[in-house]
């Protein structure tokens, strides 16, 4: 038949009756969830590198413990539920990596492993897995560790350190419980920038964190509004208290402790942050304010983790109240 022959010639090797029937659009930006997660992990490499430089290779064991706990839980639960393989999307590994970077150097790898299990098991899978969690899983894991092993989580003496000063208490700890004068002036700022201070594995060097921030901003992965609002909030609120005679300089607030690490890597987590522009500003500012309140008036020297967790809880409310007006609506 004529039509038959014309069909075959028109379609070449393609089979009519088996064309793709698919909804529009027929074009895609090309990014995938996995690519985002792995890029964020890559942005953490400078932090890992500086940690190894300052604290020695021991930190890798701790990080590995956390990753193993997180990814292992993800894998096991997926297996038990006969769900599709979710390890390749990199999110569980990223959670483990983030958790491993926010515990003290010399922290027991086994405890890090427990933290990883809790982070993914309770922080993520209990909520329905990737995308459904309300709280940042890595911080859930860290909060659990902090509450379970308070002594070990504030023990900064295990680092086999290259520089003497950093195996002591953190700058924030010194500020709160020790000698505040030790951290004043330009030398302190310089030390904080380089990372020659005590602190969590990945959070010592502000420079390394800022390199990561640059990667996240250039690839447009992180919402710049969150980073900007949190850092700006830290400077403004810290400044207000500083001017009224309470607390250290605003720059110290931002550079010391986990503030920058939190602003760049924790607060910007897509899943647990608002997705409206106005909401992002409220969220970042809220974290900064809570952090500084806890640092200045609370019983603990550091409060970034609690601040982010608490603001995570408000994200549904923020999203709801900052919905952008429809196009053309007054």
């Amino acid at each position, binding site marked *: 038949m004529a039509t038959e022959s014309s069909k075959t010639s028109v379609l070449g090797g393609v089979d009519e009756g088996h064309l793709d029937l698919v909804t529009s659009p027929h074009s895609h930006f090309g990014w995938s969830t996995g690519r985002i997660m792995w890029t964020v992990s890559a942005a953490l490499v400078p932090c890992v590198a500086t940690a190894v430089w300052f604290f020695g290779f021991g930190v890798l064991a701790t990080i590995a413990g956390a990753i193993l706990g997180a990814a292992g839980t993800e894998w096991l639960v997926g297996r038990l539920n006969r769900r599709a393989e979710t390890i390749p999307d990199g999110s569980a590994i990223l959670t483990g990596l983030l958790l491993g970077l926010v515990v003290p150097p010399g922290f027991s790898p086994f405890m890090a492993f427990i933290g990883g299990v809790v982070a993914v098991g309770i922080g993520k899978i209990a909520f329905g897995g990737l995308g459904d969690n309300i709280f940042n899983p890595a911080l859930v894991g860290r909060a659990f560790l902090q509450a379970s092993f308070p002594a070990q989580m504030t023990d900064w003496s295990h680092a086999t350190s290259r520089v003497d000063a950093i195996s002591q208490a953190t700058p924030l700890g010194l500020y709160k419980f020790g000698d505040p004068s030790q951290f004043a002036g330009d030398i302190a700022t310089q030390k904080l920038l380089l990372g020659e201070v005590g602190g969590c594995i990945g959070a010592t060097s502000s420079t390394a964190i800022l390199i990561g921030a640059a990667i996240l901003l250039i690839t447009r992965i992180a919402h710049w509004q969150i980073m900007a609002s949190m850092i700006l909030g830290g400077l403004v609120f810290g400044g207000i208290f500083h001017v009224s005679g309470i607390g250290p300089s605003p720059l110290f607030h931002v550079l010391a402790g986990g503030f920058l690490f939190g602003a760049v890597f924790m607060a910007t987590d897509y899943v647990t942050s608002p997705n409206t522009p106005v909401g992002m500003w409220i969220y970042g500012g809220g974290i900064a304010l809570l952090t500084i309140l806890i640092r200045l008036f609370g*019983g603990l020297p550091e409060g970034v983790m609690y601040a982010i967790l608490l603001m995570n809880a408000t994200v549904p409310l923020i999203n709801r109240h900052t919905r952008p007006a429809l196009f053309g609506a007054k």
Partner: protein
Amino acid sequence: MELFGIFIAAAVINNFVLIQFLGICPFVGVSGKLSSAVSMGMAVTFVMTMASMVTFLIQHYILIPAGIGFLQTVAFILVIASLVQFVEMVIKKVSTGLYRALGIFLPLITTNCAIMGLCLFAVMKDYSFIQTLIFAIGAGAGFTLALVLMAGIREELELADVPETLQGAGITMIVAGILALGFMGFAGMKF
């Protein structure tokens, strides 16, 4: 400043729900919808304030002078139950709108241990009348805060793929646990 301290302590640092485990039943039950949560929070705050004042008077002007402190539990619960029922009737009569918003939550409050707990704590801590009042308002605010946060989260979780077995109370407990971890940041806060 001292009153402010009492307020913050009751609202945040020793949050009734998340730290002291008072009022868990309505916390689990009514935190499914944000609108209900707001109303419930307001109703609880209102009843807490009323109840704390009345029980303060009863404690200090009837039970203690009469030397019958052991009747505290019976007297308080009687007062609270009657008070709640009375308030409900009044609201129902006065305004249907207000009843819709607040009144329907009132029966739930009778057996809310947050109210009873508040009255007992106020007596235990030997607060003055004004302190009791601030304590009650702070506790109510804290209860509302926890309830509203939880309701927002639960409405969001309705869109999530929460494992079937954890849906409802299970995930509510886990969220509460994580919130409790977060509230630990306020531990030892002093102004």
